[in-house]
């Protein structure tokens, strides 16, 4: 084996801390400058890394031992009965732990042993007592459990077996006491009785309701799997009971292992097959109720097909990295596809246990049941059912032969998934803005650009270079795509600029490029360029009706840049199209997003009317989701915020303020939501004559927003707010500033932060071509020394004026005297 040098080790170790491949390469360039040998050695090690991790993780998992192994290895005869060592668990049979007397062992789990025990104080009853046999930090485990026990005690549901108590044995192991459930694992129960699909679904419905109950009490199970769902018979009626609430969280502390103790957690993690992608991530990503929804999906999958979406052995045996990768990236086969792919024997067995012919089983599962399952198994948790009762409702609809919410993925969606897999390292959470398409009005602009291009060239020459141009375009797109994958956006941008607009052709590659570049520009505040890229995306995408909430989220991305470039024309058109596309949707998340994206500036009556239908969808969803304390994830507060904005635009100040305040009571919110809510509150306060409060709220909102924009934006996410959330917040902020601090019009006008009178006109207007047929006014904006010309024109029939902002900031002329501030 080649000996290593500390230098090689040091560079290698430093290099593996850097995730981004481009930055890692840069680091290596620097660190190994001039030393080709060093570079080669380190590259070799880096190359070996993946395989090494896998080998050792695998090896650790596989270091299993049986008694015979140990004896045989030693050549010694088996131990005689009385020579046995007394194990801590054993000696207590008949003995006591706390107030409990152990009677009998009733089960053995991945991490513990379950006993039937008799409770003596304060009441006499039979309970189940589970002793965790792993060596772990018992004090903290119990503390965590106790912390949640209040909430656990509040649970009261026929299908939940409650945890009652926790403590430590004499030997320092944690134990949990639970309601005794004499029953069978649900999968075994169903299989042994060869239950039809329908009764299986009935059992599943009850489980959903139980989980819903727990979620409303703020308890996430985190470890839903068949062995945690026992079915008992109550007068001949099967009753499923979910057990082990609170235990997973207590043991893992809410986050699964850091690397150093992964072996302990590995053992706990008995069934990674049931883990949601975000749980598999195993860092401090917060796991919420939708993680349970995912696990319910796996359960449903297994009840229907007899298999889990991913093979459990494969998950555990190929090592930790692979497991994570599979759960987070690989798409599971649809249940009917899984069945269809089974060998005949297995399919027959599954069908037998479901009391149906094999062919009919596949056919039965295909369609609605497929889509329901797939919806719960979405990697993106925002796409799953929001609550367990929503899932239950859909299943109920299926049972009543009514149409279900879940639907087969549109071509756009499949296309999105495809792009997602080949996505740039930009780590965007937003799917392809394919939904941007469908005539969002940007085509007129493209038309202008194109006309411009053509006017500058000789038509004859154009035709000749047309063919070559197309080929060049193709090549440039490919090169741009490669650059995007590398994270080299400058290069990609340069490539794209070389392609005349007319040569944009439909392709996945191009879509990905435009999308990535659009977001990249936006994050750096280059709004014009960003809108251009989104427009390009329009041209290269397929059109399809997609009312998903991901599609709606894409709207949010596109809307902000349009306001930023003060292109109210386009924004109007964009908003009208958005409303038209999502008219009639019942998806509250999509509806919320359309409302929010459409109300960045005031709207006409007709627009408001069409928006009100969408607002109703949002309102209804809020009402049925239960109390505002119900966990709905970090995206939930946007709903009341959108409604607040709606009310505000309608002039209902008090109602808007109520909604705004309601959104701030949600337990999970990100800073963008808080800032936006505050802005709306400040606007309302001002309208209601409460100036002091208005100023206070505005100040509170302003700080985080300005902080965000004090440097380049980051992509963001659910926890901190997406970049477009912040962009939209800033737009509202300007409005608030204009209204509260300035004397400007109540429209989205960047307004004067100081209370001085608008200054008098200075100098003469610069000659230039005005793009509008009838310019009404020209203004100059001045803030921090940057001056821009604003043209304000009144569009016939629309209440709000449109604005056009100049690109450069050198001006010496204005007319009329309104002064605006630039953010």
């Amino acid at each position, binding site marked *: *084996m*080649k*000996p*290593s040098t500390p230098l*090689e*080790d*040091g560079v*290698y*170790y430093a290099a593996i801390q850097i995730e981004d491949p481009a930055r890692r390469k840069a680091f290596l360039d620097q660190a190994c400058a001039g030393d080709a040998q060093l570079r080669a050695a380190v590259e*070799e*090690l880096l190359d*070996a*890394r993946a*395989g*090494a*991790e896998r*080998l*050792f993780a*695998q*090896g*650790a998992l*596989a*270091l*299993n*031992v*049986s*008694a*015979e*192994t*140990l*004896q*045989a*290895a*030693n050549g*010694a005869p*088996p*131990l005689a009965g009385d*020579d*046995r*060592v*007394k*194990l*801590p668990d*054993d000696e207590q049979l008949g003995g006591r732990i706390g107030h409990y007397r152990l009677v009998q062992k009733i089960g*053995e789990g991945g991490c513990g042993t379950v006993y039937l025990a008799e409770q003596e104080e304060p009441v006499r009853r039979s309970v189940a007592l589970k002793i965790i*046999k*792993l*060596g772990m930090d018992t004090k903290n485990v119990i503390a965590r459990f106790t912390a949640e026990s209040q909430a656990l005690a509040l649970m009261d549901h026929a299908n939940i077996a409650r945890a009652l108590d926790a403590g430590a044995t*004499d*030997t*320092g*192991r944690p134990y949990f006491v639970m309601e005794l459930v004499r029953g069978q694992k649900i999968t075994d129960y169903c299989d042994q009785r060869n239950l039809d699909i329908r009764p299986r679904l009935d059992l599943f419905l009850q489980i959903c309701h139980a989980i819903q109950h727990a979620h409303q009490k703020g308890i996430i199970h985190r470890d839903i799997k068949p062995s945690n769902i026992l079915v008992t018979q109550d007068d001949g009626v099967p009753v499923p009971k979910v057990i082990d609430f609170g235990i997973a969280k207590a043991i893992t502390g809410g986050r699964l292992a850091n690397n*150093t*103790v992964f*072996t*302990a957690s*590995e*053992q706990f993690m008995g069934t990674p097959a049931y883990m949601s992608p975000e749980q598999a991530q195993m860092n401090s990503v917060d796991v919420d109720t939708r993680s349970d929804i995912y696990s319910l999906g796996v359960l449903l999958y297994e009840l229907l097909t007899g298999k889990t979406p991913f093979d459990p*052995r494969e998950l555990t*045996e190929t090592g930790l990295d692979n497991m994570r990768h599979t759960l987070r990236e690989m798409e599971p086969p649809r249940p009917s596809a899984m069945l269809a792919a089974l060998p005949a024997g297995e399919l027959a067995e599954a069908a037998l246990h479901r009391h149906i012919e094999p062919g009919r089983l596949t056919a039965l599962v295909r369609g609605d049941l497929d889509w329901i399952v797939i919806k719960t198994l979405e990697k993106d948790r925002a796409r799953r059912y929001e609550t367990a009762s929503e899932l239950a409702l859909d299943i109920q609809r299926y049972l009543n032969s009514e149409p279900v919410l879940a639907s087969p993925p549109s071509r756009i969606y499949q296309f999105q998934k495809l792009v997602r897999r080949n996505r740039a390292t930009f780590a965007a959470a937003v799917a392809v803005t394919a939904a941007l398409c469908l005539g969002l009005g940007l085509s007129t602009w493209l038309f202008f650009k194109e006309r411009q291009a053509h006017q500058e060239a000789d038509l004859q020459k154009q035709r000749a270079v047309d063919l070559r141009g197309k080929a060049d375009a193709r090549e440039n797109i490919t090169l741009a795509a490669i650059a995007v994958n590398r994270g080299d956006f400058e290069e990609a941008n340069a490539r794209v600029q070389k392609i005349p607009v007319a040569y944009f052709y439909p392709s996945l590659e191009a879509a990905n490029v435009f999308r990535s570049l659009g977001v990249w520009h936006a994050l750096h505040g280059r709004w014009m360029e960003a809108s251009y890229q989104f427009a390009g995306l329009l041209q290269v995408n397929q059109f399809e009706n997609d009312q998903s909430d991901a599609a709606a989220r894409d709207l949010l991305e596109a809307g902000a840049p349009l306001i930023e470039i003060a292109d109210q024309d386009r924004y109007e058109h964009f908003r009208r199209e958005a409303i038209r596309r999502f008219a009639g949707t019942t998806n509250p998340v999509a509806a919320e997003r359309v409302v929010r994206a459409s109300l960045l500036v005031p709207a006409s009556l007709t627009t408001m009317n069409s928006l009100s239908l969408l607002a109703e969808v949002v309102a209804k969803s809020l009402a049925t989701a239960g109390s505002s304390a119900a966990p709905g994830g970090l995206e939930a507060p946007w709903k009341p915020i959108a409604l607040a904005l709606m009310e505000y635009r309608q002039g209902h100040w008090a109602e808007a303020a109520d909604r705004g305040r309601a959104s701030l009571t949600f337990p999970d919110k990100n800073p963008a939501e808080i800032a936006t809510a505050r802005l709306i509150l400040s606007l309302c306060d001002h309208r209601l004559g409460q100036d002091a409060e208005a100023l206070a709220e505005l100040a509170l909102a302003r700080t985080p927003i300005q902080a965000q924009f004090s440097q380049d934006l980051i992509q963001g996410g659910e926890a901190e707010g997406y970049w477009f959330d912040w962009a939209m917040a800033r737009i509202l902020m300007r409005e608030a500033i204009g209204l509260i601090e300035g004397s400007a019009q109540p429209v989205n006008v960047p307004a004067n932060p100081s209370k001085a009178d608008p200054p008098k006109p200075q100098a003469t207007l610069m000659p230039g071509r005005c793009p509008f047929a009838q310019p009404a006014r020209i203004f100059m904006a001045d803030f921090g020394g940057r001056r821009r010309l604003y043209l304000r024109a009144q569009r016939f029939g629309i209440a709000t004026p449109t604005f056009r902002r100049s690109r450069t900031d050198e001006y010496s002329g204005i007319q009329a005297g309104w002064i605006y501030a630039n953010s």
Partner: protein
Amino acid sequence: MNDITVVLQSLGRGGSQASEQLLTLVYEELRRLAAARMARESPGQTIQATALVHEAWLQLTANGDRNWQNRAHFFGAAADAMRRILIDNARRKARLKHGGGQSRVNIEDVQLAERTPDEDVLLIDEALERLQAEDPEKARIVVMKFFGGLTNEEVAQSLGISERTVDRQWACAKARLFRWIREQR
């Protein structure tokens, strides 16, 4: 068990030849513990080696002395013991597989964990031997982490080095071992 405590204490006082003794004792203890456990399990049940080690530790210190130094020594020894056990086991299975007819153990009686990559373990062991010659610290760390299942903190305390060093050595060792193993396949 008492023997072990005694030896551990003498180690604590700086007795070095006690470590060989410790290894033997720990080895015995692990064997007994596993046997006792397995006797009441269904055949074919297996447990994780590291769970066994931790359990042995709990047993050992049930009556109180959880001294950190002792623990480090114990785990170090247990890791070595475990390695020995597992390698012996892997070798036996490899021999059996290749029809080496020495032992007359009926193949059905040998209840082994279903999917032990024996050859992998043997290769890791061989690679470790080589690593031992060149870089004993790395090798020790590998034994403690891989066979003993110790955390970075435990290894660091045991060897008297920083956690970061442990992490670095572990990462580098894995890569190097794998590279060598890969060449052998």
